[in-house]
């Protein structure tokens, strides 16, 4: 594992959930990982919509971000499935296709950048769940989390498997191992656990009705089990779950009230941070996590 990372913020986290950013910085600091800021970093850009319309421009914009990280001399760290999807895949493509790299660099030249794709792109869930792992994380936490929760993996963290090779996307255990063995959380299985939240791929922006249908099915399945919270690893899923529950309650008369907690938030809590920003969220702002001594 690296001892320093170029921290890629993306769009949703700094704008909608700054608490995910502050908890991530807290966690990295506790782990002794140095954060290098990515000056002038742009949108990742989103792996679904942008790529479908214009793949070359999508690649160049992503490569520009990768180039910024490279000038820092540190691998990229993201806390978002979407950013991870784009940056990982473009980095991978550039690594394995010299022709493509030439073309992309020809365009980056005008902007004053050059990409080598010599580094790695990592997701915080991979760093916590695998690089550090459920055993070693216990050296860093101050308390276990007394919580019965459910997990949402999201789409881009593990797929496409042939490229990412982190865990079996059909039956992953990386988060379960981390939350159960590392943080002491009790987890429940629920129907539609591996279904999409309904946000990505431009669905939330273009077809809000369909997006809400998907969310409704997901939340209805969560409600069938006695979970106190839903744990996720992506600010965009986070936005969909957190804001979307309120939308559903308003428009469809449901009473969804499941607090949504990002992996950085819950890890920060276990490491001793009390205010992980739940009060700024739309759903269950009063929710308080309980700790359990180690």
């Amino acid at each position, binding site marked *: 594992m690296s001892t320093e990372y170029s921290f890629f913020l993306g769009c949703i986290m700094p704008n909608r959930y700054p608490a995910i950013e502050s908890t991530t910085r807290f966690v990295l600091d506790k782990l002794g990982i140095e954060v290098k800021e990515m000056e002038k970093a742009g949108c990742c850009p989103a792996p679904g919509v942008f790529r479908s319309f214009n793949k070359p421009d999508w690649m160049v914009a992503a490569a520009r971000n990768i180039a910024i990280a490279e000038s820092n001399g540190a691998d990229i760290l993201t806390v978002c499935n979407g950013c991870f999807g784009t940056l990982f895949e473009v980095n991978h493509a550039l690594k394995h296709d010299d022709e493509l790299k030439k073309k992309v660099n020809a365009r980056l030249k005008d902007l004053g950048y050059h990409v080598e794709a010599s580094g790695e792109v990592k997701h915080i869930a991979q760093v916590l769940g695998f690089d550090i792992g459920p055993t070693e994380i216990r050296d860093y936490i101050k308390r276990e989390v007394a919580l019965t929760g459910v997990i949402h993996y999201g789409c881009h963290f593990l797929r496409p498997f042939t490229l990412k090779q982190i865990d079996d996307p*059909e*039956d992953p255990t990386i988060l379960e191992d981390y939350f159960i063995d590392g943080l002491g959380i009790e987890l*429940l299985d*629920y*129907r539609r*656990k*591996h279904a999409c939240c309904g946000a990505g791929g431009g669905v939330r922006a273009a077809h809000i009705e369909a997006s809400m249908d998907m969310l409704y099915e997901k939340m209805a399945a969560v409600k*069938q*089990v006695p979970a106190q919270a839903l744990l996720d690893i992506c600010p965009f899923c986070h936005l969909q779950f957190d804001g979307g529950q309120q939308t559903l309650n308003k428009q469809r008369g449901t009473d969804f009230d499941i607090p949504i907690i990002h992996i950085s938030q819950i890890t920060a809590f276990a490491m001793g941070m009390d205010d992980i920003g739940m009060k700024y969220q739309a759903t269950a702002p009063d929710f308080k996590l309980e700790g359990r001594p180690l």
Partner: protein
Amino acid sequence: MSKKEDTKKKPRIGVFVCHCGENIAAMVDVKSVAEYARTLPNVEFSTDYMFMCSKQGIQLIQDAVKEHNLDRTVVASCSHEQHWPTFAKAISDLGMNPHMHTQVNIREWDSWVTDDREAATAKAKRMVAAGVARAAQKEEVGTEKLPITKRSMVIGGGVAGLRAAMDLAELGIPVVLVEKETSIGGHMTMLNKTFPTDECPMCTLSPLLNGVMSHPNIEVLTLSEVTNLEGSMGNFEVEVTTKPRYVHDNCTSCGRCAEVCPVEVKNEWDHGFGMRKAAYKPFPQALPSVFTIDMRHCIDCGSCVIACPVEAIDFSMKKEKRTFKVGTIVVATGYEEYDPTEITAYHYEHPDVITQMQAERMFSPTTLTKGKIVRPSNGQVPKTVVVVQCVGSRNDQVGNEYCTGVCCMYGIKNSRFIKEHLPDTEVFFCYIDIRTPGLHYEEYYKRAQKTGIRFIRGRPSSIEPDPLSDKLIVDVEDTLTHTPYEIMADLVILSAGMVPPKGFGKLGGKLGLLRAKEGFAKEYHIKMGPVKSSRDGIFLAGAIQGPKDITQSVGHAGGAASAAAQPLVRGYLEKRMDTAVIDKDLCTSCMACIATCPIGAIVVGEAGQPVVNDAACKSCGACVPACPTGAIQIRNFRDRQLNAEVSALLSAAKAGGSNE
């Protein structure tokens, strides 16, 4: 022909340029190629014609040979493989040596691979110039009749192997049938019903099984595998290794040994739906009707030895190796059902997710369930069954792009079977496309539609155990109505495709067979040689050449038997002698050629010098560059002949026959 004659007599060459309809003429200016040919050294005559291979075209060549007193012909048309024999025969009918014909391929190597007419024409000219130069250097080569062993071997005792063995035996050819399992019959004996007639497979197969077992021309070797192969078409030497059965043939099949045997294990033949003892026969009608002791599980208690009334059990039996001389070989090693484990989204490890082969066993009356349709997890009758098509077929994620072609029919068959036995059970049939081509198959599907099976056009994205109940959640979109379904299933049956049997790589390697990228044995020509393998004298029968249903396998096997019988019935092999020859004066007996020949066609002769086995040599030329002194050459591919060709090609290019 000696070198002296060679220099004395000036060759008289005729060049014939073919249009191949539009295949060549559309891209090559055939007239100008023919005109150009006339300017080449030694060419006495040249012309072009619409179809050289037609009767009229052949007549044209023969007339020209007679009229212009030609002694060599060059036809610029298609591949050597396709029509060299046609034109060689045309001139040999006139009494010439067939090797005096040279084929130039301006179709596959030229017109078909470009859309630049000018470049294609220039290239055709260069190729003709090279062909003419080569023709001038050609030597006469004879054809020899070689003796042959009148016996055939069939590897694999499934329905295809049985059919091939029977057909060969009926032509009076002695056959050795090699089967690696304890009994013959293969997958067909495991099936519950066969489409499209819903017949009992054992009833259909029995006459053939019994016929093969008792045929005076067939020797059946079970528990046996081919472990080595030497020689070539007409005279193979095959080593067969037979594992001990630990029961002698005087076994009366009384079954006492199994009664007393204390060890019970899963019966492989029942695919998880039946048990057997360590002393066993896999199914009641198994042939040969002799029990087997499975030494992997035997605990050596000796009960069976005491129980056997005819003292048939003998633990001292040993592995045996025998070598058979055979003229031809038929490979009929069949297929294996695809193992769906790697498609993790389908959770095949769940007891209520089974394959069609398992369903066949569950449905048949001789297994643990006694033919009842149940959920393996709890023995209850399933209320909702989902049949999933194209598992491991038409799926490039698992590397199998091909359609197995059989699964639609057996999937429909088993769906119907469930509906007939459990009319209140909902059966969902999830498919990508229904593929039921041919007589009686579409009709079968139509009838199935009327039974109330719900056909859903969509491939399930996942089959997951429900965390809240004992059901399976099948997620599938009906792509005809754009409706997503979440089916709560009690039983899921995966129509797993057909893949080449494990271990075929090893056998294929021993036999020297080329394999297709999917792992099946590659046929010689997909249309015109589907039963020939890549190796002379070895033929393919049934699903080892690619997925087939029983009807197709039996037909294919009949073809293979007939092809394998041809040389044996004729009684000799005709071999063209354009093979490797060794110049004794140059050869230093370094044996580099022996090490290089991929098929072992060169052996050490009595005088300690390498000797080429003309019958085996495939004229591949691998030995030629291996020889440090240039002693080994292929007739009509000698260095001087190839030099002439290449020089002509280069000088034609320089002379402007090129636009590069």
